[in-house]
């Protein structure tokens, strides 16, 4: 049995006939921090809702903690082990910070006082401040604290750092790195911030039009993918597109830019035989991977 905390296969969901997910395959290994990337409307929030049991899939399988989510009971059991930080960061408006923490603490027998104290110290949240008066960053920090201190094995977050200033973002990322080190938690979060995903994640999943177009170890992806820039005397030959390992081909005048993975050396040799005047091979950044896969050419 693989040690994935999240495993989906062929996950599909439509809203009144228009498909949001079209056979999503996703794997999040235990102990990883996985960034979930995609354009607006790519299916990120739908995926999170399905994983949390807030929606039912039309087709496909979800396994959480190795268990199939095929009954109400299995969903409830899994939900107990998951902490969730929603995008809108909903909290009870009539409480202050201290009351919110005490209220939540009472609900969870496995509450970790050590983590509560640790993150109170890191975030320096004002105990007496009323929840509606908290800044967006403080609301995020409070929700994160609640999710972490209840002892969740899997933390899911919907755009945790959206709208936060860089210092606040760094605090959140530091808390996540710490949680993965000390708490050995698995973290799965959606984001639009490629820079933060590159900084903190070891796994990345890119979703486009309801399907995963990239799902893997970030450093492995960086090792596997290359950008190959070719310049020709005339128009680049059409044979380029059919070479093995070419993911995307873009042409501008006499130059062709290939995004490729796999046996790049072999590919470069084959491209050389097509008679380019210059060949350049470059590493690929996450931003390039993202843009090349979601642009929808």
């Amino acid at each position, binding site marked *: 049995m693989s040690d994935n905390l999240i495993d989906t296969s062929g996950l599909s969901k439509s809203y009144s006939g228009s498909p949001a997910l079209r056979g999503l395959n996703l794997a999040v290994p235990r102990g990883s921090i996985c960034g979930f990337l995609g354009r607006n409307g790519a299916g990120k929030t739908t995926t999170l809702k399905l994983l949390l049991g807030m929606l039912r899939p039309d087709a496909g399988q979800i396994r959480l903690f190795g268990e199939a989510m095929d009954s109400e009971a299995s969903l409830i059991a899994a939900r107990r082990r998951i902490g969730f930080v929603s995008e809108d960061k909903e909290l009870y408006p009539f409480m202050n910070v201290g009351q919110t923490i005490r209220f939540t603490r009472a609900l969870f027998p496995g509450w970790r006082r050590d983590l509560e104290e640790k993150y109170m110290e890191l975030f320096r949240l004002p105990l007496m401040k009323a929840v509606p008066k908290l800044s967006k960053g403080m609301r995020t920090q409070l929700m994160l604290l609640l999710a972490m201190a209840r002892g969740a094995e899997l933390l899911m977050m919907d755009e945790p750092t959206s709208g936060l200033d860089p210092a606040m973002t760094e605090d959140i990322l530091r808390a996540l790195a710490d949680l993965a080190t000390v708490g050995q938690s698995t973290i799965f979060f959606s984001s639009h911030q490629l820079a933060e995903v590159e*900084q*903190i994640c070891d796994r990345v999943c890119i979703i486009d039009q309801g399907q995963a177009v990239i799902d893997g170890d970030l450093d492995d992806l960086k090792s596997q993918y290359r950008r190959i820039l070719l310049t020709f005397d005339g128009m680049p030959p059409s044979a380029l597109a059919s070479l093995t390992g070419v993911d995307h081909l873009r042409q501008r005048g006499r130059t062709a830019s290939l995004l490729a993975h796999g046996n790049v050396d072999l590919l470069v040799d084959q491209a050389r035989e097509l008679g380019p005047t210059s060949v350049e091979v470059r590493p690929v*950044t996450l931003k390039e991977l993202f843009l090349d896969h979601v642009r929808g050419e």
Partner: protein
Amino acid sequence: MNLRIHFSTGVPIYLQLMEQIKHAVETNAIRAGEQLPTIRKIAEELTMNPNTVARAYRELERDGIVEVRHGSGVFVAGQPSSANKTAEIRQAGEVLRSAIERGMALELSEAELRRVFEEELSRWQENVTPPRRQR
């Protein structure tokens, strides 16, 4: 050791870490036997993924650059040079002691022995130094 990671390049992060630690070892910024920062410390200081730090250490261990001693931490591999030197000096002392004993058995004085030692040392230097300089 001053680690600096560029997250937004195409170079895998664990490779960047490996290169910088290797460089620190090669330039003696950290020496054999010295302890490296813990995974947690690096992950915290650079705000990065602990699994990635662990991967860099794993690969460095495979390359024989570091030694992971479970429970106590990660250390630069190889004999610590200072401890090495001490052992060598002790060995040389034993050789010299037996030479002194044999000299004393031939009823040489302390001053005569010292003169022989100095003479032999300078003769050795004359023989050995020139080819070294030519290198």
